[in-house]
């Protein structure tokens, strides 16, 4: 630890001088908060977490995302301590790695996530979605469901379990680990350490099982992978698997939930997509822009001036990509959600060398999951319970009550889903 322990947490007074992403108010009122900060600040500061900054203008976020000289990715999730990791990889390569090691760790994974390889997974993902919708059982028009818990959350977890070759029944378990690590920023450090240890022990067990019996999946692929002829260090294999679970589930779940929330509260858009499903990919880009779920962090390498702000060594700098996506200097009618927006160079998947490795997978999951949801439930509206938003750097609904207005029979998929050859098939 390089900074003194933080003061006890108190409610946020002014978001410009004392922000806190772990306050539930932040994700609930994020759009207003960014807009307020953009007009009067535009780089907010807090002394919490040993010092952190929150730029909200597109230009600033872009500048920091591209600058790997002044900022390190050693820590991408804000906490009270700074991660201490020896070596170039960081705890979860490639997201925590800096160049030049970052490039090697990333190149290893790129082929498995390239668009044409990912496209092969469409039938499997469709069956997983249909099965999840069938699990809702006999629902009829007028009933309410929690679309965040019973659907949006389930799909990405099931997809990642499949890609990594983790037992499907463990899906609840590793979702619990992810939740513990992403939403527990202000827990005491020894409790966080216990949670990390439990997750590590689980992953070690899975990796050992794959070494004994190799499979066609990403866990086996990573256990066998090499950089410059050398096998990956065990912490690298474990860190990358943890990253795929951490990066691939809450993000996709959040965007799927935000999209369904938007459609429930904008009946004209729901009707338009029902009548013209080919608009869905364009609409998804707009949901990604407006509801971009991920805010990433960096640590300042050496103290320097950033547009008049004194960034100190080891300060956190947050990159709220959704705030960049709503900057009126870059996007026309930035706060309006236009599902047919044609020009949309949004930064939901980040900018620069850490661009989301899973973006092609995320887009496929989102499209298929929404197509299948709309096929079973062509019409719905907000239910009785208020939406509950997540807390922390991944923003999305964690409770989303919907009242179903029209219900189609579920498509009953086969109980076992055939596995598409994926990691090893190279044509």
């Amino acid at each position: 630890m390089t900074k003194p322990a933080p003061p006890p947490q108190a409610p946020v007074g002014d978001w410009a001088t004392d922000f806190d992403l772990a306050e539930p108010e932040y994700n609930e009122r994020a759009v207003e908060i960014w807009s307020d900060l953009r007009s009067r600040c535009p780089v907010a500061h807090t002394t919490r977490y040993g010092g952190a900054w929150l730029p909200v203008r597109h230009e600033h976020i872009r500048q920091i995302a591209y600058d790997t000289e002044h900022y390190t990715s050693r820590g991408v999730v804000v906490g009270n301590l700074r991660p201490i990791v020896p070596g170039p990889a960081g705890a979860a390569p490639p997201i925590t790695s800096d160049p030049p090691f970052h490039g090697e760790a990333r190149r290893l994974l790129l082929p498995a996530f390239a668009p044409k390889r990912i496209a092969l997974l469409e039938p499997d993902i469709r069956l997983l979605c249909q099965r999840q919708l069938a699990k809702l059982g006999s629902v009829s028009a007028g009933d309410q469901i929690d679309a965040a818990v019973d659907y949006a959350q389930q799909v990405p977890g099931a997809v990642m379990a499949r890609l990594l070759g983790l037992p499907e029944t463990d899906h609840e378990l590793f979702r619990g680990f992810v939740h513990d690590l992403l939403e527990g920023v202000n827990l005491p450090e020894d409790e966080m350490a216990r949670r990390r240890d439990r997750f590590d022990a689980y992953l070690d067990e899975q990796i050992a099982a794959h070494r004994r019996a190799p499979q066609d999946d990403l866990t086996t692929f990573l256990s066998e992978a090499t950089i410059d002829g050398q096998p990956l260090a065990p912490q690298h294999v474990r860190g990358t698997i943890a990253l795929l679970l951490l990066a691939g589930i809450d993000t996709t779940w959040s965007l799927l939930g935000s999209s369904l929330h938007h459609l429930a509260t904008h009946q004209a858009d729901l009707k338009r997509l029902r009548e013209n499903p080919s608009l869905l990919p364009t609409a998804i880009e707009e949901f990604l822009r407006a509801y971009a779920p991920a805010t990433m962090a960096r640590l300042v390498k050496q103290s320097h001036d950033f547009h008049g702000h004194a960034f100190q060594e080891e300060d956190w700098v947050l990159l709220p990509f959704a705030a960049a996506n709503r900057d009126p200097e870059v996007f026309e009618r930035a706060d309006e959600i236009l599902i047919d927006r044609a020009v949309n160079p949004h930064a939901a998947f980040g900018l620069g060398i850490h661009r989301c490795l899973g973006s092609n997978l995320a887009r496929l999951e989102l499209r298929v999951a929404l197509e299948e949801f709309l096929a079973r439930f062509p019409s719905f509206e907000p239910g009785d319970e208020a939406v509950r938003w997540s807390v922390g750097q991944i923003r999305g609904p964690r409770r989303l009550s919907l009242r179903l207005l029209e219900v189609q029979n579920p498509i009953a998929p086969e109980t076992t889903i055939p596995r598409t050859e994926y990691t090893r098939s190279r044509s």
Partner: protein
Amino acid sequence: MRVRVDAQRCQGQNRCYALAPEVFDVDDLGQALVIATGSIPQSLEARVRLAAANCPERAITVSDDD
């Protein structure tokens, strides 16, 4: 019209490939390349401009024929 992808800037966001697959392809690492040779047919110009406007990394440049 001519189009170019700056390989240093491209991070494989794949918006161009989705919007104008006749002109852009992506390799095994997700990196974009221009497959159309020479001048872009007029019928594709609008979509190529749209692809350039949607690249978050600002990696695509279009220019007039010399």
